[in-house]
């Protein structure tokens, strides 16, 4: 691989997306896109619908195979063909726009399923971990409830907890507030705020510009499957260099 020669261990990015392309049939969603994310960094992906944010996150979690390029985790190429994705997914979690909680399982079982089946934890150990996280995020009394009895905001918080329970090094958040009623957005974003600075690397696709500005170390504007602009929140939001960024921000801010 091209990166290994140049990058030393200390400055190696946590996640390196190198010249990745991805098409669905005739439509190319990612075009030769590159992005490095450091350990513990919070990077937001903004951009219009269809700009490739969701696909990029799904590629990093190996839910979508890439056509070209490479994705590296700690310098290790995880996107190579034929590689078992499951060990990677233990280290890289994802939370979806539509929650995707398992409706036939209680909240607590949703969280413990992968702990016991993937990490091999005992039932007791897994339950303890679930209880600890539910308590930390104010959902302790919902442990035995089924997902359809929860509000959207609560469901999404459980989905975040389910991903966090695996102690991932990288957490991908895919428009996690887009399916929520406006008054429920805050409680979910509060969870993400609490994660910042905990050492976890966050890659966030979002339409919440205020939130992206507040929480991100860097903001990345995607346009038709490539990075059009990347910088600190104040630079991207206050003095964008790229004309397409300016147009996009003008549209979404008003």
């Amino acid at each position, binding site marked *: 691989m091209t990166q290994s020669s140049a990058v030393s261990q200390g400055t190696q990015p946590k996640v390196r997306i190198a010249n990745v392309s991805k098409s669905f049939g005739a439509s190319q969603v990612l075009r030769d896109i590159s992005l490095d994310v450091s350990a513990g960094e919070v990077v937001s992906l903004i951009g219009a619908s269809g700009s490739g944010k969701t696909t990029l996150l799904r590629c990093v979690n190996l*839910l979508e195979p890439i056509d070209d390029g490479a994705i590296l985790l700690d310098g290790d190429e995880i996107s190579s063909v034929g590689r078992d994705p499951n060990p990677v997914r233990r280290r890289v979690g994802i939370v979806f726009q539509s929650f*995707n*909680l*398992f*409706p*036939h399982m209680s909240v607590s079982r949703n969280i413990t*399923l992968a702990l016991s*089946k*993937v990490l091999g934890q005992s039932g007791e150990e897994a339950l303890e971990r679930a209880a600890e996280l539910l308590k930390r995020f104010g959902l302790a009394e919902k442990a035995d409830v089924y997902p359809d009895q929860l509000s959207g905001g609560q469901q999404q918080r459980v*989905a975040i907890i389910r991903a966090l329970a695996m102690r991932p090094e990288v957490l991908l958040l895919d428009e996690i507030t887009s399916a929520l009623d406006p008054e429920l957005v805050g409680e979910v974003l509060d969870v993400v705020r609490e994660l910042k600075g905990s050492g976890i690397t966050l890659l966030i696709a979002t339409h919440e510009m205020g939130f992206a500005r507040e929480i991100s170390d860097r903001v990345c504007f995607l346009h038709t499957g490539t990075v059009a602009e990347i910088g600190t929140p104040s630079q991207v939001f206050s003095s964008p260099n790229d004309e397409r960024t300016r147009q996009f921000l003008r549209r979404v801010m008003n």
Partner: protein
Amino acid sequence: MTSSSSSERRSFERAQRRRSTLIAAASTTAVLAAVIFLVPRMPRWDRVKKSFFDIDQASDSFPRLVDAFWLDVKIFVWTVPAIFIVGLLIAIARNTRTPALFPLRALAATYTDIMRGIPVILWIYLVGFGVPGLGLERPYNSPLLWGSVALAMTYSGYVAEVFRAGIDSVHEGQRAAARSLGLSSTQTMRFVVLPQAIRRVVPPLLNDLVSLQKDVALVSLIGPIEILRQAGIDKAKFANFTPYVVAALIFLSVTIPLTRLTDYLLSRERRRTSGTRVA
């Protein structure tokens, strides 16, 4: 406009309900009366009554028919687990996604196509006479055994399609969530997809059981003396069709409760998965 008070609304709804009950009762009574009044006036009613609804003949045949019906029940009871297991395996095979498993998918698809494409009776004849004809030793040459196998094969084709529809109805996001947590595809199928799929297809599966319960009688065509065949024997002996009517009533005594149970489960499932009902 002032809105009507809630008591006014309630009494209106009560009146509506009373009205529909009255209409239903009246129309049922009218149809029954027509049948009771008209049928006995048909020219040959006396003969039909004697050869189809002979009470003495019925009570004479009844114990023999109930005895023979036990064989139907037994065939039913041992084919059902086989049908569910084979059907589920076929459905899972059709749902595999690895390119390397293409032959398995093709085989499963061919199996369901063939099983659903051949009339049950024909398949029972072919397997029930054909396999014992290979010269197998007792008890493996019994037409009863191979007739049941044929029945189970046909029904597993149908049941496989029901399971497959259930598996397909589980949203892709469920798989994505399970796989993203590191579960293997087998674990995802077992812990996330199948439990949801099976719950959804219980009512259509019961539907298939109701029709299996009737089709068990087809096994009689290759020899075993179950209720349909016993009724035929009695008919021949006494030159009276009443045993057939009794056999039909015995079938109904099982299939009607099973059908009601299916309807109940279906409506419960519908209530659970959809919103309020439109009147």
